[in-house]
């Protein structure tokens, strides 16, 4: 545990709400609009946090507990990532499984909260969420397996650290495939186009947004923050694969991460402005493509 590591976690927790704003701004500019300010989500969160809440009579404690779990699992997952480029705040052999399963725990509770309302719309969103996740999870693990094979380590700090930088020259094609695959997983986990469209206004076409229809006030603020944080965490994973920062001093590494996250958010904005979201039954094919890419990376490593 190092101070730079803790500072890095704090900074990522702080800038997470910036990323959706950046993506939206890029999209607005590319489509000829001025768009909302990049820090809009901060204002939204502050406004929601000050409000009261309306609860459905159908709901139980799960509905109110889920937002807490989503944010908590995000924060704990952040502890495992080597955000300053050196090492995670908590790190142990096999923590990559803990990272992925923490995100899954958050998802499980949000899905249960959606079902707690008894709303057909939220049920639909929950059903789509677990479907998307079931296709994104193997892709994520294939990418992690490729990194394990490339570095011979079993912790996130290990597979994203110095050995990865050494592996790049020898295994560039495989690692590039892994990075692209992780980016596709990011689009799914962050509920972005072409998997989901955060800007849609029709409940029937939403995934994540429709799951949180009934939440209001501070609960909604927690949910919005939790999903922004998830975007930042998987984004940090993508940045760490493309730009291993173990050789850099922690402060520079952190600066590279922040810059990288902004670039990733910008690319998400570009993707959103050049393509429409996929028809829902095409989403599994899209994510299977991500798995196939990562699997190709794994096979390249295995035969090498």
């Amino acid at each position, binding site marked *: 545990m190092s101070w730079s590591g803790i500072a890095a976690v704090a900074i990522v927790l702080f800038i997470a709400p910036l990323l959706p704003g950046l993506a939206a701004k890029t999209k607005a500019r590319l489509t000829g609009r001025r768009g909302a300010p990049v820090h809009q989500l901060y204002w939204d969160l502050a406004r929601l946090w000050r*409000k009261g*809440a*309306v*609860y*459905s*009579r*159908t709901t*139980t404690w*799960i509905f109110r507990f889920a*937002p*807490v*779990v989503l*944010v*908590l699992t995000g924060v*704990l997952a952040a502890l495992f990532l080597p955000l300053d480029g050196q090492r995670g705040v*908590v790190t*142990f*052999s*096999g*923590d990559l*499984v*803990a990272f992925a*399963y923490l995100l*899954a*725990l958050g*998802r*499980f509770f949000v*899905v*249960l909260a959606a*079902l*707690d*309302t*008894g*709303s*057909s*719309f939220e*049920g*639909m969103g929950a*059903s*789509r969420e*677990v*479907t998307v*996740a*079931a296709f994104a*999870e*193997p892709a994520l*693990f*294939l990418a*992690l*397996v490729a990194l*394990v*094979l490339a570095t011979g380590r*079993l912790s996130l700090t290990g597979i994203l650290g110095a050995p990865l930088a050494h592996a790049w020259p020898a295994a560039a094609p495989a690692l590039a495939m892994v990075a692209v695959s992780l980016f596709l997983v990011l689009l799914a986990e962050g509920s972005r186009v072409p998997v989901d469209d955060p800007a849609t206004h029709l409940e029937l076409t939403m995934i994540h947004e429709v799951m949180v*229809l*009934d939440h209001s006030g501070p609960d909604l603020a*927690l949910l919005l923050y939790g999903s922004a944080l998830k975007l930042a965490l998987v984004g940090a994973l993508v940045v760490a694969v493309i730009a291993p920062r173990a050789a850099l001093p922690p402060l520079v590494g952190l600066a590279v991460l922040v810059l990288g996250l902004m670039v990733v958010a910008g690319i998400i904005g570009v993707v959103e402005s050049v393509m429409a979201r996929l028809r*829902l*039954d095409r989403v599994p094919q899209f994510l299977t493509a991500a798995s196939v890419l990562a699997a190709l990376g*794994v096979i390249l490593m*295995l035969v090498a």
Partner: protein
Amino acid sequence: MTLFFLGIASVLLGGLSALALRRQASLAAIAFGVLVGLGCALAVVPAIRVLAGGVVPDLRLSAAVPGGDWVFGVDPLSAFFLVIVLTVGAASALYGISYLAPEAEHRPVAASHLLMSLEIASLAMVVTARAAMPFLIAWECMAVLAYFLIVFESDHAEVRRAGLVYLIGTHTGTLALIALFAFWAQFAGNLSFDALAAASPRIPAEGALVFALGVAGFGFKAGLVPLHFWLPGAHGAAPSHVSALMSGVVIKMGIYGLLRLVILVGAPPAWWGWLVLSLGLISGVLGVLWALAQHDLKRLLAYHSVENIGIILLGLGIGALGLRYHAPVVAVLGFAGAVLHTLNHALFKSLLFLGAGAVLRATGTRLMDRLGGLARRMPFTWTAFLIGSVAIVGLPPLNGFVSEWVVYQALLGSAQVPAARAAILAVPGLALIGALALACFAKVGGAVFLGRPRSPAAEAGGEVPRSMLGPMFALALACAAIGVAPMIAVVPAIRVGASIGGLGGGPMRAAAAAVGPSLLGISLLAVLLVVLAGAGWWLRELVLRRRPRAWSDTWACGYAFATPRMQYTAASFAAPLLHAYAPAAGVQVERTAGAFHTHPKDLVLDRLVLPLWERLRRGAFRARPIQHGRLGSYLLYLLGALLLLLLYLAVRVEGVGP
């Protein structure tokens, strides 16, 4: 061993007293509960002593029967499974007292309690037998007693049918086991496990036939795909506490058998490791996919047993490969993951079956699309069921995460073993299993406990008595304990894992050292999760206390008269996933203008076994004329058979003689 047999005797006495005192229901319940609970507590003592590193002397009975002495003993593997048998056995038996009480009028409840105690005793005998004869006898007792436990509600035709399919399945498996030991005995002096182990180097082709028959025989009991076809029906039809024992313990005897085989024969051939690994992957993915398609809560849970057997086999397979390719740490972790997941699955699956039993008792239905809103009506059952759900999905901070993590660790460790590197491809498979299990338990929780009641039956449901909640919460507590302090289970599991490979202290300490820091990390994570979730909840309440809070109807996008029927159903929830996996999911979709129905079909039972069965039956009709009930022709058959036998003997003596 004295303590162990004393405990088993107490369990049996409990069963007998339930039968003897059946006229005084409350006295019988107390006697049964106390004696079974006490017996299990006594019998588990030697097991715990062995798991802590101690030694318990064997018991040798000189029996005047073929096959040599009957030996009973407790080694680490037996001890680990004994703990599973006795904890889950006690919880199921105690739960059964209240669960069966309402049926006392019209069904043989006391006999069912007696059968339960006999079943626990035979399970304990299976895992302690050290010779093929007592092993097979205990095995067969276990299988046949389970049949009688399953057909408790024998007035229902589908229960009788499920029982019959189970009986055929289990006997086919036993047939393979008898063949296994008969073949093996050719190379050994007698049928004690020691003699068989000593003879194992003489089995041709590295014991190929023994290992193949083992997969078939023990695979039937474990319910791995495609030998699982008897399982969902039987576990769905049995009374819920029997389903808990069947899913939690009885099918695990197949896993015990496979592990015992590895101990006796030694490192299995490489193809066997790959076969078990692939069967694990297939069982895991198909099991959870088929579970997702179910409408019946208990059948759904039964398919999840197939899934979890798959996860256990992943550990077993990578353990066997590690043994073969001389990677002791991978081998120990693989076997440790397998036995640990066996224990964990026994805990949370029996918890879930007991929860399903509570729902069934409270509402009278197992159909998920007729339930809903039970979280308000049965808050304690829901809490216990939720703990079981988080555990079975493999999420922190509960025990399912710990054992899946050990299996992951073994699979990822294969990256360092050149010959077994491809095994790492099972990692994304395990991730897929986890994600599908999450979808499935979101469906169960949502359809059964959350939202609004979908039928008057669900509306009428109320909390079950404390005597049923007690065993559920005891199991939930065990799940939480292993999740928060994983060392208490992982360290004994590693001892068992090392004993399976015959690896001894060195690799055991190496494996323990390899996972030690990680276990502390997992423990820290679990504590942080629990503490911070509590703190977060408290903070949120503090903030909201000063804010206006209002209650209203669920937002239905402006539509004001949403009825419970308009909720998303369990079938709709699973539809997108099942559609994406259409050919493998085996779901028959029926779509009309105003309705959407899905009918789950078991790809093996409905598409393969039953058609084959039908063909066999029709073939058998053709042979019927030879049995028409006329005495004369039967005498003729006898004469013919005798003549053939004499002829054979004459030819044989001629051939062998000088």
